[in-house]
Structures are given as structure tokens and as C-alpha cells.
């Protein structure tokens, strides 16, 4: 049977691309006229669907999982950056299916926003899911962190095969207690690295204060990140440790590599492929950061790093992972819907590490909130310019002879990339 929705959806996709429009519209159209399209298409995949969710790191982790599986010879369908809502998945599907609606893939690995994942899994129960973390992000959408954890729990409950959980995030790890039929696997972190991952619960606990009583013994993890070097990382799995080169930087990205390895190993172990460790590691060492997540570009012959910051934990990790010394620094804070409108979180980040060199330029709709925050941490501010284009031009002009780093919220990152695309080559994500 030929479904008219597919040719029509493809047509909308072409037209909206010609107009330079958003990626979700064709998805919306096909959802409206053929609500069964996504479910019908995805349930035909021989190894099913894997969902990656959590508040932070979905995009890079999904990219890693895809590249790891591809290294094992699997054809993977994924929703590339930008639209991690259900209709974004439908839109991505339209681009990949043939005119009869068939998808040539072995498995789908999908990044899904926590709230939208709930709707998605009700319609398409995944065979695998990977739940990364519940950080204090998007409280303006969800109200409470505990509410976000419930959304992730629902994804796990709907999963038919293996649920991969972050052992180090108590709200994620606890999801295991609520599951009955599923296989549970964990990814974990060496105790020596825990200090670099202050979670939201101990953010304000006094140094050295005892852990809350009643914490259960940590379960064994499938893959544990043991050490992080400048360009390498050491992982432990199958009873041995291996050191591998890494292109990804930032402890949080490398921790998510342990998450991606655990999921990829589960999928391979589930019969999709014979996991070959040499090629898996080789693929892992070649993964480059996704779109704006620790991306390194070149401007005027100098490196320019983009570090996406969305919440206090992420910002603190970003500051820890990328030493300020020798760099010109810009911070771009927007409070559009996609960034979160609430600025409270800036007060839960310590900016002492920027005190030495100061911050050259502050920009974004909340540049003055950032300036005020830095004033209270005694960090010198060079210039404040709420207009991102003007600020970026000034930053590049003044920092001509220095490597540069920009910490930015999501929509600020999009604006900066648009500006940078005019003067340098930035990765194009379809």
C-alpha cells in the first residue's frame, strides 16, 4: 500500500528547504495527515529503536552512538541536531525514506527531548534507551528536577529491551528500582573523577560534609571512565582497562563516551553485530564534537572554541574543562525560550577561574545579568554589548592575536555560528 503522506511530506520538505525554513514543518504536516507514519516506519527496523535522553549531552552522545554502530557495519538512522522533538524525528524520517515510505536502516538512534520523548515512546516503544542525567536545566519548563526524573522514568518503563543508566546521577540510577522486565546496564565514573562532576544535590553542601545516609552500594557498571588526559581517556570494561586517544574534549563529553560505549555494546550484544573492540575504540577516538558543543573553529588563524552552557553544572564543568589562561574569553547569555527564561542559575556557577584574565566581552539579551554576576565574583569585564553580531566582531578584532573561547547558551550559539559562517567554515548539519 502506498501512503500519500510520504510523497506529500517529501514535497513539503523540499518546498520548506527552498524557502530556507525550519526542519520540523514537514514533520508536522505528515504527523497531521498520517499519524501512524512514524510508528509504521520505525517498527520495521530489524534492531528496533534506541532513544537517548537526559537534560545534557544528548546531541554529542547520540552522534557517538551512531558512529560507534556504523563502525560495526550497521546502517543507522538518526535525527541530526536541531530537532529533538517528535515532529523533528518525523521530518528526518521523510528525508531518509524512499517514496514508498521504506527506511533502509538496521536501527534508529534518536535523540529526544525529555518531555517529547514521553509522547514518542508511547507511540513507538524503543528496544533500548540511554538516560544521561537530570540536571537543573529547564526548570522553567518542568518546574522541578524530580519532575524531569519522572519523565525519564517513563521512557525506561516503555523500553522493551535494555535500559542504560548513569550510575553517578542518583535520580537516574534510582530509575532501576522501578523497572521490572528490562535489562539494566550502567555507565560509571571512577571515584577520583567524581569531584569534577558536582551534581546539583551537593552543589551547596559544605566541603567535606558526609554523604547523605542511606545511599545504596553502587552497582557494577558496564563501562567506567577511569582517567581523562589532555587528548586521551582510560576506560574500563570487560575486566580490563584501555587507553584511547580522544578528539572530544571536556570531562562531560568523555563521560558521555562511556555512556555511548555502553549503549553501543548493548545493541551489538543484542544481536545487531559482533562488537569488535578495536574498531569500536578506533571509532570512539575519531568522534568530533557535535554542532556547538566544544567545537573548535579557526578564525584569523587562531582557534576559536564554542562551549555550550545551559545550566550551572554544565557551566561549571565547562570552566573546569577549559582553562582560561592564554585565551580571550567571551560569554553570550540569551534567555529565549530554548535557553530557558530563568537566569537564577548563573548565581550557582563560581567564576573565580576567570578572575586572572577577566572576560573580554559579554553579550546576549542577558549580558548585564552576566556582568552583574561577574562583578560579585570580582571578575574584570572588558565590554558589554547586548547585540551578538557587534559583540562578536569586537571580540574577534580585539583578540586577533590570541586563541579565543566563547561560552554561550543555545540560541546565542546559533547566532554566533551564523555570524561565524560569514567569515570561516563551520560544520554544516543538515
Amino acid at each position, binding site marked *: 500500500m502506498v501512503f500519500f503522506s510520504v510523497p506529500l511530506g517529501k514535497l513539503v520538505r523540499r518546498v520548506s528547504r527552498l524557502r530556507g525554513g525550519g526542519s520540523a514543518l514537514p514533520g508536522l504536516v505528515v504527523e497531521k495527515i498520517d499519524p501512524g507514519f512514524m510508528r509504521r516506519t520505525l517498527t520495521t527496523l530489524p534492531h528496533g529503536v534506541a532513544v537517548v535522553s537526559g537534560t545534557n549531552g544528548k546531541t554529542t552522545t547520540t552522534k557517538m552512538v551512531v558512529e560507534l554502530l556504523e563502525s560495526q557495519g550497521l546502517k543507522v538512522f538518526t535525527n541530526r541536531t536541531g530537532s529533538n522533538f517528535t515532529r523533528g524525528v518525523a521530518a528526518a524520517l521523510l528525508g531518509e525514506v524512499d517514496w514508498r515510505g521504506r527506511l533502509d536502516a538496521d536501527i534508529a538512534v534518536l535523540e529526544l527531548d525529555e518531555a517529547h520523548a514521553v509522547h514518542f515512546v508511547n507511540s513507538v516503544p524503543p528496544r533500548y534507551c540511554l538516560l544521561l542525567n537530570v540536571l537543573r536545566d529547564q526548570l522553567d519548563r518542568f518546574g522541578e528536577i524530580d519532575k524531569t526524573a519522572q519523565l525519564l522514568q517513563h521512557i525506561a518503563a516503555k523500553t522493551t529491551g535494555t535500559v542504560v543508566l548513569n550510575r553517578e546521577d542518583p535520580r537516574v540510577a534510582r530509575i532501576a528500582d522501578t523497572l521490572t522486565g528490562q535489562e539494566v546496564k550502567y555507565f560509571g565514573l571512577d571515584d577520583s573523577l567524581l569531584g569534577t562532576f558536582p551534581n546539583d544535590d551537593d552543589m*551547596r553542601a559544605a566541603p567535606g560534609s558526609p554523604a547523605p545516609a542511606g545511599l545504596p552500594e553502587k552497582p557494577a557498571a558496564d563501562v567506567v571512565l577511569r582517567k581523562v588526559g589532555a587528548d586521551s581517556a582510560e576506560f574500563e570494561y570487560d575486566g580490563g582497562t584501555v587507553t584511547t586517544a580522544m578528539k572530544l574534549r571536556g570531562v562531560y563529553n568523555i563521560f558521555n563516551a562511556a555512556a555511548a560505549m555502553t549503549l553501543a555494546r548493548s545493541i551489538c550484544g543484542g544481536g545487531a553485530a559482533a562488537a569488535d573492540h578495536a574498531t569500536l575504540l578506533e571509532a570512539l577516538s575519531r568522534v568530533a564534537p557535535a554542532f556547538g558543543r566544544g567545537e573548535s573553529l579557526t578564525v584569523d588563524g587562531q582557534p576559536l572554541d564554542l562551549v555550550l552552557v545551559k545550566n550551572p553544572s554544565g557551566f561549571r564543568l565547562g570552566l573546569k574543562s577549559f582553562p582560561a589562561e592564554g585565551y580571550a574569553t567571551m560569554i553570550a547569555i540569551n534567555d529565549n525560550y530554548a535557553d530557558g*527564561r530563568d537566569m*537564577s542559575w548563573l548565581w550557582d556557577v563560581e567564576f573565580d577561574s576567570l578572575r586572572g584574565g577577566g572576560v573580554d566581552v559579554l553579550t546576549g539579551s*542577558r549580558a*548585564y*545579568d552576566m*556582568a552583574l554576576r561577574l562583578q560579585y565574583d570580582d571578575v*574584570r*569585564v572588558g565590554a558589554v554589548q547586548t547585540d551578538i553580531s557587534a559583540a562578536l566582531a569586537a571580540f574577534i578584532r580585539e583578540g586577533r592575536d590570541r586563541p579565543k573561547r566563547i561560552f554561550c547558551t543555545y540560541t546565542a550559539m546559533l547566532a554566533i555560528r551564523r555570524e561565524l559562517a560569514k567569515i570561516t567554515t563551520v560544520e554544516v548539519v543538515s
Partner: protein
Amino acid sequence: MNPAEATAADGPSKGTIRVVQLYPRDMNIYGDWGNALVLKRRIDWHGYTPELLEYNVGDPFPEDVDIIVGGGGQDSGQLVIQDDLQARAGQLKELAEDGAPMLVICGLYQLFGRYFKTRTGAVIPGIGILDVETHGTDERLIGNVKVSTTEFGEVLGYENHSGQTTLGSGVQPLGTVAKGTGNNSNDGHEGARYRNIVASYLHGSLLPKNPAIADFLIRTAAERKFGSFSPGNPDDTYAVLAREHAARRPR
């Protein structure tokens, strides 16, 4: 001068002002640390010596408290501190009646009241310092807020709560909502004032962009302790600009 280079007033300290943060471990979800940090820095900028102490469940309660600051928490955090707070009710009430300045935000605002009745009808007792009561609802009030006050001018912040608070006759509202919802969806009031207590649903954090409230707490602490307050000269250039921009942002 770059405001970030603002330093303590010259000369010897005018005295020590002790700030106690209530339950930072369990009641600190919306940047409440910002309020404590602002008090600490501004006490310094006014020429006094700040001492910032944390009080968590089970700690010995600090002596010679000059300012109390308490934040919001998730419902689960409120459950953790509930018994400990009841055990401290007497001391806190005595301090409040004696005119100690206090800032309580969101969760601790609710628990400083008479009770919090949840959606399911369970009643969590408060410590009754404030004549207010709170009822849980299914509606979550979230977004940027502007409040007109007679005492502190326009107050700017962000709200995120599902409990709705009604004021009794023993307290005054902090102000009238110009944008946002405030205490509840009915009367247009935001926050509560009683003696030297400022209670509010606004975080953001509240004090950085509302230095008038921070200075009120510091002034009343100094007057209570030393009999007078001699202000310094903090540079509020960025605070003024941040306020102007915040006031223009959508709900």
C-alpha cells in the same frame, strides 16, 4: 570605574555582620546562593566585615545571628528539613520578633507561614512566624515578574511555584504585581512583609537585581547591632542596567 573592581571602603571595619544561610544543602534550587553572596559582598562594600555561615539539618544553631537568608527547594527538600525547622521555630521566632532582618524565598517563605496544604489535602505545618497560608495547586506559576513596592521601588525577579499563598491580617504584601502572578492567582499581591522580614516568591536571584532590598537587610542588621548604619558606596551600574533589560524581557 569598572564595577567589578569595586572594593571595600577604606579604613577599619565598622564591625562584623553575621549572615546565616538556612539549609543551603536542601533548600537552594533557584540560585539562592546569589542572595547570600550579594549580602556578603555588599556588607564588605559598605565597610563592615561579613561572616557567612551555613546552617543545615542537625547543625548546632549559630549564635549572634544578624541576618537570616533562606531559599527555595523542591518538595522533597522541604520534607527533609521539616522536622529540623520545627525544632528551630522558637529561636527563629525570637529573632524575628527582636527585629532581626530575614529574607525567605519560595519554599522557606511557605514554611515560615502557618501551614502548607498540599493538593492531596495533607497539611505540612509551618513555623508560624508569618501570618500566611499556602495551598498546593495543579497550576504552576512560572515566568518573569515585576512588582511595584512602596518600600523598594520596582522589584524584578522570576517565579516558579505551584503553592499559592494567601496573606492574613498580620502581614503586609511586599508589593503589587505588574507582570507575572505573585503569591496567588487572585489578589495581585506578591510576597510578604513583617517586622524586618522580607518574604517573596521571586528568585532570579532576588538580591542582585534588587540591591535596595539587600541594603535594607544590611542597614537593619547594623542598626539592630550597632545602633546606626553608615553606608558605603557600592557601584550599582550593572545592577541598574540588568534591571532595565530584565524589565523588558517577556514573561
